[in-house]
């Protein structure tokens, strides 16, 4: 394997550090109170239809909704709070 030059290694390390720092900084940005106050049903209506029809809560069991929630978080890149509220709504509305 080709050996990296010191400047390339330093650049890669700096990019990695800045990327992680940037992500952590952005992650600490608090949503506004209006966004935080959104309910699971509101987030379900807003986010699911970005790609497909809004799903019926009856489609899956509560345990299965947990799995689907994790899968959808990786596909639609929902925030953790959105995913938790949407899954909570789907589980409680069966």
């Amino acid at each position, binding site marked *: *394997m*080709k050996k990296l030059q010191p400047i390339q290694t330093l650049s890669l390390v700096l990019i990695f550090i800045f*990327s992680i720092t940037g*992500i952590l900084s*952005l*992650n600490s*940005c*608090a*949503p*506004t109170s*209006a*966004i935080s106050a959104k309910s699971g049903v509101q987030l379900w209506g*807003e*986010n699911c*239809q*970005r*790609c*497909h*029809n*809004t*799903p*019926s809560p009856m*489609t*899956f*069991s509560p*345990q*299965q909704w*947990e*799995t*689907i929630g*994790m*899968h959808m*978080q*990786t*596909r*639609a*890149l*929902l*925030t*953790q*709070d*959105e995913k938790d509220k949407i899954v909570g709504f789907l589980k409680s509305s069966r």
Partner: protein
Amino acid sequence: MKPTLKIKSIILVLLIIIITGSRTRLEAQTQNATDSALSDRIAALELQSNYSRAGDDHLLVIGLATFGWVSTKTTNTIDGVSSVSRSNSFPDADHFEFSPMFLWRHGTKFLMEFEPSFSNNGLGINWADISYFAAPNLIIRAGYLVVPFGTYSKRLAAGWINKLTTDPMGISEMAPTDYGIEVEGGLPLGSMKMNYNFSLTNSNLLNSDGTLSSGSMGDVNSNKTFTGRLGILPLSNSSLELGVSGMFGKVGTPGTAFQNAKGTAYAFDLNYVNTFSPLLINIKAQYNIKNISDVNYISPVDSVTAYTFTNHSTAAFIQCSLRPTTANNFLHDMELAGRYTTYNSPSNSTWGSNQSSYTIGLNYWLSWRSALRLSYESYTGNSTASKALNAYTGKTISNSWYIQFAIQL
């Protein structure tokens, strides 16, 4: 007994009754509180136990199936001579697919995803990866994954999600599936949101005709392809998403004439979904650009002669669909969709062409995840391939009717 003593006795008995009653009520309340706390604790332990126990609740099989029929009339004109062909086919490309998807949740931190797929192209694997939910809004994935280039391949290509029976030309081809690692997540940003997605995968490889291939298990050229996408949702109701993607890496195999060849690609995507009563409006668009550095290729007609061309490709589509939201049941389940697609591949290569298509379709939603679709597509392709390399294929016009049933399993 004296009256005073009698009264005192009565008061004493009443006091005993009151104190005993109060104590009994207090004990009952304490008992209820204990029972409630125990019930809560048992429920929490059951939930905790379910999360960490493998079983049916954790291995979920979903997926999709599509089945369709297509009737096509194709007219090809080359050097002023036209020929017409017709076909009627059931399991045509993109219209028959059975893809079960296995999701295995291991606790609350790990998710395994595996999707084999059978179509008329054969049996393949769409993706096979492990995701680790490392922290809120930070997911780390490894395995065989769809690189984060645009949004179509990752979010919209599934047969039951796609509003039309065909895929837009050239869009998925520029977002390969490959072995590697990926970090991604969604982040709150005040009243907005953003999302990020970066991957490092085994390199794309330049083929002898200038096309790219990917998905090599081995590390052929010791380089890696970096792909990243940033998306922003500027409106508080998440109705609009704008994204920009980039893909960079060496694509040449060491020891060949291509060893210094580099590939760069960019994509811009838009997604807007909102209700303007009585219509739900859904707009999707993506624009891809791909450039490969200039290299010399071996002529397919004369193996001692080299040729070159500007290896630049673009692909774009814009799609709009409308669905009534307040109409009666029948109309409420109908959706009208239209799309324009353009795909330009390098001229003077062996495969260059300028292609475009118009597609319109009517969907009838049987449920939120199954639909019957009727589509019509008009396609025009003008070959820009090299005549000197005997690759020129003239002008092709085709008109196709599609009927398709699509379901999420």
